[in-house]
């Protein structure tokens, strides 16, 4: 098999419709007689709803019906959580429309169904709801005390506590002992602020109940999971539910969900017997689509005075928000295996307490647990380097797993198959001009320049390619981690590839075509990749966790290889040779040592007409494969950031960013670069710009793009990216996944760089995002009083805002949708 397509920067098949506006985003869908939904949402973070008067709304022009929680109480069930991380995990019921109480600002309390979106929106204002406010709990430390309960009926805010202990697991020593015996122990508390995935396409759902099946189009990353969950939640026969993810405008984990809005639209469609559409506004999206991150991290790192790490203890408080979404409680746990990162530890303990608060629930967001872990360990390593007056790269080099030591069993119980931290690091240092930049930093420091320079390092690995099903079972996740593909050769020789992954920008149609083109020796353009529709792609586990290529791509390879084997049998028969004598190369089967042969397309037509096939041979080349990975995959990389800090204003500028990532073999380098760029910006944005801020009554203050600062092109430079290639040894493609890598690595590189610039001025830590204000304050206050580790979590109590016209200087009062 000659490799021609794999490794090529093929331009994307997906582009044509996207650059010409011929798209099928869900909100574009229009069906005859379609009705429109608008949601009434609670402006209170915690309250009982004592009375709902929908009379005026129901008689408003164009309104067909108004649904309250009580109206659908018997049908709506409870939104699913597929991950009970412990047997005693506590969770409140999670109705799509709140019935008699609300637990976060933005929770749906009623739904208007009308003939136009404008009429639906108008009627929302006529719904009268009486709320009895209850005390809110927003801060994690406070939630831990159970002094105020997010859900009084639950009796506690603690959902579950999950522990991994290397001594108990038999992978290492007892961490308390290891730390006690260490020459040096660093204790730190870091904060992972709450973020909002903020995909560019607001969520939208259309349900058509008029067919034999109920069809739902939704801006989702998970059409298969959604189909299963809707069937279970609403007690609809699974075969009667069809879910389609048409064009989807970004997800980043934020569309990995079974949402109240999807359930409500389904209920509305069934009730009215008409197609129904709901499209959220951006304000609704920021407020009520699930959030990400949200942790208090208490860490202890033990080391020798020579800088060899000994033990690591991690104690997390994780913010669930008000409810448990589809994988909410599992997100921090995914990180549990990554705090030890690329380093060799003798002892490790991880403990996480998942807590409820009166905010929107959290769930997967790019990296899902691993960025949090990487941030913690990479910040610790830089802190340790500073403590020991050691170069931060050298400190890492002393502790990381050497290239020769792979495969390596880690203290967290994972086996890393392959890696080459040395090669990636050396290349990164060279591209970055590390020595020169360090020298410049030192010069500026000595001269007391107004603008200081800092170098930030982040060496990371991550676990992706979710996931070996047995491991998921061991972690109590309800589903598996396999992926499915079907490869069909049509009579004309064209090829259809059905894949169970569900792309929303990743270029699967292109990359899968490249894989199959090489595997079957057929032209790239003759391959059609079908996905995203449970009727077409009958089986799958969708896209998240950087799994599509590693798991989904391998399923495609397995299916394509089955096709080749079937075709080989037919070829042997038609060519009157033994199958052992049939060679397959570049799409052609030939008899060894002769020039007799048949192209795959000819075999396909022969199979289609079935006039002359071997006895007992099923007249079909079409093949299914379901691939369950035997291990996670472990991409890694070295990231370096040069940060400038204006000590007069606190302004931080990213001057230069270099990363060298190893994601195994590369299918399409152009797509890989794009994933890295996008991932970097999100990780950098966590470090510098983004934060979901709530005021003391639990209203989301950063409720629009005016205040939730997603960066534009004007806010960042271009990046220098490069690769080393250390193939994975656990899948035939040798690939490792890249979707989340940039995000996972970059956040600590930035913060480490900022601190490197101003540590000598007495700053030990700065809470993210490192806004100019925070940096300036840290500089003013010096090490002990800076807005950093020692400060209480600024679960950001912004002053109550004037409910006047739009106040542009930071706070748009957008919380009220009544």
């Amino acid at each position, binding site marked *: 098999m000659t490799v021609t397509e794999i490794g090529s920067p093929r331009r994307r098949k997906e582009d044509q419709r996207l650059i010409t506006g011929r798209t099928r985003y869900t909100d574009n869908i229009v069906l005859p007689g379609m009705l429109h939904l608008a949601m009434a949402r609670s402006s209170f973070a915690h309250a009982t709803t004592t009375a709902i008067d929908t009379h005026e709304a129901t008689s408003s022009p164009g309104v067909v019906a108004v649904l309250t929680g009580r109206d659908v109480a018997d049908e709506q069930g409870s939104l699913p959580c597929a991950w009970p991380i412990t047997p005693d995990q506590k969770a409140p019921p999670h109705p799509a429309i709140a019935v008699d109480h609300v637990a976060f600002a933005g929770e749906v309390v009623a739904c208007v169904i009308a003939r136009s979106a*404008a009429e639906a929106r108008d009627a929302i204002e006529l719904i009268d709801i009486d709320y009895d406010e209850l005390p809110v709990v927003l801060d994690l430390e406070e939630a831990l005390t159970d002094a105020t309960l997010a859900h009084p009926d639950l009796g506690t805010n603690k959902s579950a506590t999950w522990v991994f202990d290397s001594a108990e697991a038999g992978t290492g020593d007892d961490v308390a002992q290891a730390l006690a015996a260490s020459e040096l122990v660093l204790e730190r508390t870091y904060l992972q602020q709450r973020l909002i995935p903020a995909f560019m396409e607001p969520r939208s759902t259309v349900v058509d109940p008029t067919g034999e099946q109920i069809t739902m189009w939704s801006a989702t990353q998970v059409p298969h999971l959604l189909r299963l969950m809707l069937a279970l939640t609403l007690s609809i026969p699974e075969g009667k539910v069809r879910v389609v993810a048409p064009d989807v405008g970004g997800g980043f984990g934020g569309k990995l969900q079974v949402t109240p809005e999807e359930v409500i639209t389904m209920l509305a469609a069934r009730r009215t017997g008409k197609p129904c559409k709901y499209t959220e506004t951006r304000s609704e999206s920021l407020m009520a689509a699930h959030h990400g991150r949200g942790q208090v991290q208490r860490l202890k790192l033990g080391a020798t005075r020579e800088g060899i790490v000994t033990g690591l203890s991690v104690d997390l408080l994780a913010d669930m928000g008000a409810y448990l979404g589809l994988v909410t409680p599992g997100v921090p746990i995914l990180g549990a295996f990554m705090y030890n990162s690329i380093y060799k530890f003798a002892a490790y303990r991880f403990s996480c307490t998942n807590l409820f608060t009166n905010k929107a629930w959290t769930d997967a967001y790019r990296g899902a647990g691993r960025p949090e872990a990487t941030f913690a360990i990479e910040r610790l390593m830089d802190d340790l380097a500073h403590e020991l007056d050691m170069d931060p790269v050298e400190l890492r080099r002393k502790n990381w797993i050497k290239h020769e030591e792979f495969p390596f069993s880690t203290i967290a119980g994972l086996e890393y198959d392959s890696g080459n931290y040395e090669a990636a690091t050396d290349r990164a240092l060279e591209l970055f001009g590390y020595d020169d930049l360090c020298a410049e930093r030192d010069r500026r420091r000595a001269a007391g320049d107004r603008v200081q320079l800092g170098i930030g390092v982040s060496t990371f690995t991550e676990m992706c390619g979710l996931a070996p099903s047995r491991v998921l079972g061991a972690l109590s996740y309800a589903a598996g981690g396999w992926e499915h593909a079907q490869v069909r050769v049509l009579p004309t020789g064209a090829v259809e590839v059905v894949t169970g992954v569900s792309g929303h920008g990743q270029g699967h149609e292109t990359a899968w075509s490249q894989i199959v083109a090489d595997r079957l020796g057929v032209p790239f353009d003759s391959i059609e990749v079908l996905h995203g529709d449970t009727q077409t792609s009958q089986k799958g586990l969708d896209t998240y966790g950087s799994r599509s290529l590693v798991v989904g791509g391998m399923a495609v390879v397995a299916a394509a290889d089955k096709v080749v084997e079937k075709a080989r049998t037919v070829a042997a028969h038609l060519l009157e040779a033994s199958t052992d004598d049939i060679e397959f190369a570049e799409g052609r089967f030939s008899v060894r040592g002769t020039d007799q042969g048949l192209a795959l397309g000819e075999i396909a037509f022969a199979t289609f007409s079935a006039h002359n096939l071997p006895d007992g041979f099923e007249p079909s080349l079409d093949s299914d494969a379901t691939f369950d990975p035997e291990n996670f995959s472990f991409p890694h990389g070295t990231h370096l950031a040069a940060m400038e800090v204006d000590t*007069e*204003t606190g302004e931080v500028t990213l001057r230069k960013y270099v990363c060298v990532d190893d994601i195994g073999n590369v299918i399409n380098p152009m797509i890989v670069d794009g994933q890295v760029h996008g991932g970097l910006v999100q990780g950098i944005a966590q470090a510098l710009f983004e934060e979901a801020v709530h005021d003391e009554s639990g209203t989301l203050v950063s409720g629009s793009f005016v205040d939730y600062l997603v960066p534009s092109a004007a806010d960042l430079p271009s990046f220098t990216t490069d690769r080393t290639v250390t193939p994975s040894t656990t899948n035939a493609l040798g690939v490792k996944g890249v979707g989340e890598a940039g995000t996972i690595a970059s956040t600590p590189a930035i913060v480490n760089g900022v601190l490197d610039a101003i540590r000598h001025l007495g700053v030990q830590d700065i809470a993210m995002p490192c806004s100019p204000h925070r940096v300036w*304050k840290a500089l003013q206050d010096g090490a002990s009083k800076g807005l950093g580790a020692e400060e209480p979590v600024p679960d950001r109590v912004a002053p109550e805002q004037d409910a006047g*016209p739009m106040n542009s*200087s930071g706070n*748009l009062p957008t919380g009220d949708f009544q």
Partner: protein
Amino acid sequence: MIPSAFDYHAPTSLDEALTLLAQGGDDAKILAGGQSLIPVMRLRLAGPELLIDLGRIDGLRGIEDDGDAVRIGAMTPHHDIASSALLGEHAALLCAAARTVADPQVRHRGTFGGALVHADPAGDMPAPALVLGAEFVIAGAGGIRTVSATDFFEGLFTTAVGEDEILTHVRIPKHTGWGARYEKFTRVAQQWSIVAVAATVRAEGSAIAEARVGLTNMGSVPIRAESVEAALAGCALEEAAIARACASAAEGTDPPTDTNGDADYRRHLATVLATRAVLSAAGG
């Protein structure tokens, strides 16, 4: 989001617009470029019952030489101001500020007059207009009157333009050849000013002869840093001297506290940005 319903008129004369405005009372709003009003309406933070669109009235748009001043029609978009050669020569500060408003698309539609009358404390055009000594030409049922910049900005989102009046033009006294700099501090490019300083300077040799310095978002109205202006008169064109002169920039200000910073920080920023703005405007 979809705004609530309203009646709409697009008069073709100023008189017609004034009549409609008077009839509409406090339920009526003027629609200029819409880049401030429409976002507020989409969030249903405002729901005027009647919108009077000035977009079809001739004579409200344009930048003209008017002797000792430049006359700018209220409906002139920020983009036109930013790229005006005439203003570049005679009131460069206005161009500098207009270039920073929002983003290119918004600058194509948003108007000078609209921004001034909206009077958002974080808006970029009021402070430059203030320090350049703008004269505001306002039409009402009783005729036309002119209001000086010092009297125009009255409070938060409030100006001297009455409920039944329309700002038609703004006259900017010429500051020919003065250096200018609008120093705008934001966390991301698209953001409203956290603090901004508008500075325009007439240099003479190696000293500043005169300076005008205005502050954005340091109070409910744009603020003229008069003590700074006084200190800058005759100041040497040298960073340390300018910094000393700008030390009082935050005097008399009442900056907000929000997620971008507290009042102390903003006061500090004002002095730092004033120094940088003046230095840059002076060509340093």
